[in-house]
């Protein structure tokens, strides 16, 4: 539930701009983003980076694709945009929509497939070698240059079929692990590779390494310690690349592709984000289940954090057609807790409420007092939760409707665990058909003057 990267599922939004840079029409997400920056239909775009890309496209007369980070109230939103001249107008396509809070460092560019040993190789779309380099000294038994421009099968034999590679070429997977035999050395080899896609969504080739096949499979204990030993980072890095590239394909970054393929790319990006969320949650779970886990105890204001959570989810609410009623600007609910963890809980609660709210619905966030504790309540008007399910939903990997997309059954478990660790609690009241009210309580701060 470290939902501080807040993606909006599968959203590619479009807008049309005239030759003078005025916004003629826009999907809700772009209109919302532009509106919060002070813009309206009929005037130039108010988000400076978007306006600049539109201007550049218009001047150059060619399509411009960019990855941008724009400010949206309290959050930074990462966007993939493609701006393209179309007759007298300019079309803007925006996807990505990943919200990142300003304090999170942006990861640097990672090499596609960094290797320290083995044979590094890269092919073009037709699986001809465009790059080969040996990292094991001269014992590859051939001069890599002689293989350049030749097909992958000139160097490797696939005795058991090449299912992994074929799957990748058919677009069914991006990571390849394929057993092969090096024709020159006759030795068993494992090819690990990543599919390279061009911005048009086509297969651009494979990039990877070839290593000698290991004599024995790694033991189980390797996996047991692997998660803490950086597997989480490795997973996040690969997933982030998959999501980025799928987003780039989804917005047809460098030319038209069939809608089906753009939709598949959207599915890939969405599934990738889901997995990233799961990795984050598992890391979080590991942290909070440690016996020595102690959240910070600082003065926080539930009303302020409620307003910030609503702000962070504004784009997603626009997309879902749901209104979020924030706590009044004057409302205060001072208490003691870990501000980042409280925000994490609230973002999870509001995110859940958004997921279950019907189009045109609304979510109310209000604050108050519950005995000696400050409370904040997030109420939706969704389908509600039965009494039986209410007992389950705070369990690990429990979900109201396991068939429903989004969520991994860890969010509420982590949220309640965090709430109790901070000396508070997280409870739910609901009845089927009448929505749900989640209430977070935290110990009040000893400051009587500023109570609501």
């Amino acid at each position, binding site marked *: 539930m470290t939902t501080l990267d807040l993606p909006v599922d599968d959203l590619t939004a479009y807008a049309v701009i005239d030759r003078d840079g005025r916004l003629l029409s826009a999907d809700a997400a772009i209109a919302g983003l532009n509106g919060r920056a002070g813009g309206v239909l009929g005037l130039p775009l108010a988000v400076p980076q978007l306006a600049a890309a539109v201007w*550049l496209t218009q001047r*150059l007369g*060619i399509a411009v694709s960019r990855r941008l980070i724009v400010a949206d109230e309290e959050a930074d939103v990462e966007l993939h945009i493609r701006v393209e001249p179309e007759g007298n107008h300019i079309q803007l396509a925006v996807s990505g929509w990943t919200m990142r809070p300003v304090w999170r460092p942006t990861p640097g560019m990672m090499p596609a497939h960094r290797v320290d040993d083995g044979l590094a190789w890269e092919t*073009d*779309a037709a699986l001809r070698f465009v790059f080969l*380099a040996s990292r094991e000294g001269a014992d590859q038994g051939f001069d890599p240059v002689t293989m*350049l*421009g030749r097909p992958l099968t000139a160097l490797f034999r696939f005795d058991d079929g090449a299912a992994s590679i074929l799957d990748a070429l058919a677009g069914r997977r991006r990571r390849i692990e394929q057993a092969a035999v090096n024709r020159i050395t006759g030795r068993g080899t494992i090819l690990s590779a990543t599919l390279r896609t061009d911005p048009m969504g086509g297969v*651009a080739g494979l990039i990877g390494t070839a290593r000698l096949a290991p004599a024995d499979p790694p033991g189980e204990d390797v996996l047991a310690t692997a998660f803490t030993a950086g597997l989480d980072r490795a997973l996040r890095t690969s997933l982030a690349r998959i999501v980025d590239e799928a987003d780039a394909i989804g917005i047809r970054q*460098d030319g038209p592709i069939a809608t089906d393929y753009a939709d598949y790319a959207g599915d890939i990006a969405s599934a990738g984000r889901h997995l990233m969320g799961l990795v984050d949650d598992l890391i979080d779970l590991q942290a909070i289940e440690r016996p020595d886990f102690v959240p910070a105890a600082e003065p926080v204001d539930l009303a302020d954090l409620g307003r910030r959570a609503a702000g962070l989810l504004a784009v997603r609410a626009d997309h879902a057609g749901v209104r979020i009623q924030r706590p009044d600007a004057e409302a205060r609910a001072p208490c003691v807790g870990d501000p980042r963890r409280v925000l994490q809980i609230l973002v999870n609660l509001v995110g859940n409420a958004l997921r279950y709210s019907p189009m045109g619905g609304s979510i109310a966030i209000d604050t108050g007092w519950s005995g000696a504790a400050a409370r904040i309540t997030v109420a939706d008007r969704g389908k509600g939760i039965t009494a039986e399910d209410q007992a389950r939903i705070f369990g690990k990997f429990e979900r109201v409707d396991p068939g429903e997309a989004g969520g991994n059954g860890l969010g509420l478990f982590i949220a309640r665990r965090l709430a109790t660790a901070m000396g508070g609690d997280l409870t739910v009241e609901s009845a089927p058909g009448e929505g749900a009210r989640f209430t977070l309580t935290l110990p009040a701060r000893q400051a009587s003057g500023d109570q609501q």
Partner: protein
Amino acid sequence: MVAGRNDDTGRGWAPYGLATRVAVAEARAQAELDTAIADLGVVEALRLDDRTRLDIETMVGGLVATIGTTLRRHAARLLSDRDIDGAAVLRPVAELMPRLAAAGLLRDRALVAALVRRARHDQIAAALPLLPTADGTPGLLIRLAGDADAEVAEAALALLGLDGRRRDAWEQGGAGPVDLPVALHSRVAWHVAAVLRADDGSAAVTRAVDRALAEATDRLLAGHDERQTTDAVVLRLAAALDPRANEIVALLVAAIDDRRLDLFTAMIAHALDIGMPDMRAIVIDPVGDRLWLALRALSVDRTGLARIALALADADRRRDIDGFAVQLDAIAAVPAAEAAAILSPLALPAAFHAAIRATGQRAR
């Protein structure tokens, strides 16, 4: 000389050594001040960025280590014939670079120019956007490697191999190998030989060491095959292609799309008869005025100019794509003949062109 430390420890504090001690201290203080003044005087916008500085240090470090190791091994073998232990009388390779730097190797204008050109060119080439080719069509260089013209195919294959080695070095975190012109390569090699000699042996040993190093260096230089450098190979490909006026625009755009900046640069250099070093300097210049003129001299149209400029700007943040966009119409309207005429001095022998520039006479 290390700031804050007096290297000259041998003279002690005996009265006869005090004057020297003071003189050394004063020289060090002056050097420190000179460095401070030079550092403060650097125009911020022109300062070398950290990435380029690191790449250059890696390149020159790699070059010195390669030359140093070769010379040391060969010289040691020659010395062993005279029963002299090479390891004892030749400096270790790790000590060479600091001495060369102190001796001002990196103040050599021509050498630094070559290193900066190569480092920036590689950075831009690595950052060029990956663009699609038409359905299943391989990239330009792979296509050329399978060309029916054997000369084109051979040169394209050689370039693929060189590109691969450069990419490999790049991905392992270091800068690629640097190809220096013969004169520069020879200057660096003799400098390396000079710092390899540790001058603390007897006169006879020193003479033997010098002869061995001279022979080793001669041998190294004789083995330097300029035909195998990137510039030579890529120019050979450009010459073999020798594109007609109506073909070159598509080839230039295809080279950028295939992220083969060397080939892009070489095709312009060949078509306009400009030397590869000059053309490289033009391509890496973030103020693209000379490049736009070169492209106009080849009749590259508005769309071609825009595509090339956008790809280069995406790969090099120092470029002002907005400023270019404002001027694009005017640039595209420059007549090809005028653009060619204004660049024609670059086609003169490099030394002559440099002399014209130095004497302040304008080209007409």
